């Protein structure tokens, strides 16, 4: 068993909903992430999947302390990131980086590509002048960008190239964990493969650990070693990739997998039409009592409304939160 790089313990993130102009008061909370726990092992790629609004991106950002958690702990190298502040946190952040979904919004349009990739060195005072330039050139060739492009601005690059700039920036400080928040969903199909291959190569080359947040279940299966499924702020299932895809335990995972189309008309024709989920995801402001999935679950029983199911180990390394399995 390899060692844990990061441990998330009972992480909670609520966003307050405020009303009123002068006398602001909290009228409720969006339960974006509601008590999730998991580990990320060194060198693995953990996939975090779920539909939009399930809290997967919030979870990623809260782990990096881009949002401060409402409660819970994030242990990295023996320290709780949630309790760190200021300089101490900044030091730790060098080891934790992020690749964002939107390669258009996550790069400052007024900075050149070289300045964007070189900025981490300046911020952390790790290099100066020509040394920065040398590092930037190295990073550019590492991610497959032509080093002569360092003086170009983001708008002069295509979507795939911009995502490479974002990847180069995240690699600048030699991080050990990179949170990839839907890094390919804004890209065209033929470009997605380029970026995924690059991420895989970099992982092999640099021994990186990824938290890969995505909604594309086929791509997650391709790139991840373990997968966690989120629904409405909670983890409903977590396990090794093959176990989770071949023998999914939670009814939500079942439903998700049966909804993924396969690029093969013959298989699509033969596929027996599983009962798809009906209805929509309930509001995270007032999530259902007990099991959050019970309003759409084909197996729902009385107990599901009364008791929140715990995430239990149903098979070695394969955990699910359901009363019925």
């Amino acid at each position, binding site marked *: 068993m390899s060692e844990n790089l990061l441990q998330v313990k009972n992480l909670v993130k609520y966003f307050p909903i405020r009303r009123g102009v002068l006398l602001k008061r909290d009228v409720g909370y969006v339960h974006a992430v509601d008590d999730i726990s998991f580990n990320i092992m060194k060198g693995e790629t953990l996939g975090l999947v779920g539909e939009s609004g399930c809290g997967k991106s919030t979870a990623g950002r809260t782990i990096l302390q881009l949002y401060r958690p409402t409660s819970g702990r994030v242990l990295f190298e023996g320290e709780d990131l949630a309790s760190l502040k200021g300089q101490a946190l900044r030091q730790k952040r060098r080891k934790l980086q992020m690749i964002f979904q939107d390669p258009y919004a996550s790069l400052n349009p007024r900075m050149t590509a070289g300045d964007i990739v070189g900025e981490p060195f300046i911020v952390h005072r790790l290099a100066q002048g020509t040394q920065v330039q040398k590092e930037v050139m190295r990073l550019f060739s590492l991610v497959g960008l032509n080093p002569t492009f360092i003086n170009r601005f983001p708008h002069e690059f295509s979507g795939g190239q911009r995502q490479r700039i974002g990847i180069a920036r995240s690699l600048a400080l030699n991080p050990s964990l990179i949170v990839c928040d839907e890094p390919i969903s804004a890209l065209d*199909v033929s470009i997605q493969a380029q970026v995924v291959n690059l991420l895989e190569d970099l992982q092999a080359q640099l021994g990186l650990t990824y938290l890969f947040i995505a909604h594309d279940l086929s791509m997650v299966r391709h790139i991840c070693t373990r997968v966690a499924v989120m629904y409405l702020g909670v983890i409903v299932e977590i396990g090794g990739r093959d176990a989770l895809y071949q023998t999914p335990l939670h009814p939500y995972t079942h439903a998700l997998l049966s909804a993924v189309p*396969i690029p093969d008309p013959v298989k699509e024709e033969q596929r027996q039409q599983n009962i798809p989920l009906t209805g929509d995801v309930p509001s995270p402001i007032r999530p259902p009592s007990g099991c959050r999935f019970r309003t759409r679950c084909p197996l729902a029983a009385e107990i599901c409304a009364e008791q929140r199911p715990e995430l239990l180990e149903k098979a070695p390394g394969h955990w699910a939160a359901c009363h019925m399995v």
Partner: protein
Amino acid sequence: MDDILNVQNLETRFKVKGGWNHAVNGVSFRVSEGETLGIVGESGCGKSVSVMSITRLIPIPPGQITAGTAMFGGRDLLKLSDQELSKVRGAEIGMVYQEPMTAFNPVLSIGRQLTEPLEVHQGLTRQQANARAEELLSLVGIPNPKERMRDYPHQFSGGMRQRAMIAMALVCSPKLLIADEPTTALDVTIQAQIVRLVKELRQQLGMSIIWITHDLSLIAGLAHRIVVMYAGYVIEEAPIKKLYANPSHPYTMGLLNSLPRLDESEHRRLESIDGLPPILHKKPSGCPFAPRCRFVVERCHREVPALLTVEEDHRAACWVNPHTRRER
């Protein structure tokens, strides 16, 4: 079977700073009665512009349709006056768009937006139109249609808005439904619901569908025939099973091999297509895919390949047979 729509040699371009952007370059396709045609390609390949040109929903200017015919029910849509065309749009051709939030008018209730075309196109009274709209909303699976008709678009969830938009497109029982990436903004489970709904509806109503998408996985279970576009050209056309079993253009092969698949047992490296799709400021002198192609021969740079027959109903625009690597 008879063609319901037959588009020949369509050319559309857009005026840009210092010249023209050639978005559609001699595109031909047809849709027969009851058939679902998938038009597949990446962003900027001209798939939406082709279809929007037929219904003249592109902005003119800067857009300009420079050539082509689009025969629909014995008339050439490209030659109709604006007035005649607006009788076809919404009545005989229904449309569903990608972003259900922007396609609705936010200040009119869902019900009003459904009844308006019925009053305009079919001359129904308000009561008749209301009854029909209610019927349609329940057809597309919206619970409590009577109450929900009074709601405004923002009160609907994404999946419900897309259902409502399908209802709006079907309101006058069109012969042809054009769906432009209708599920791209939706989650997989909602996407599966919409696809199932469309399949049921096409069986019930017997309409033809043009489904525009970049998603080769989604369209596999939905279309009867596929047209693949690249840089404003049709580069391959085939019945669905032939296309997936025997892709005959290097671009189609590349697209299919770049997809991770849920049914795969071995981890394989995804095949990526190097380079970027071109932006056509001038019409290319050779195959537009040549700079990215692994099978390129000298002729590819000289001549734009014609759509050559691979086998019956299956045509590809490539001078080389990628399976034998010989020139066709």
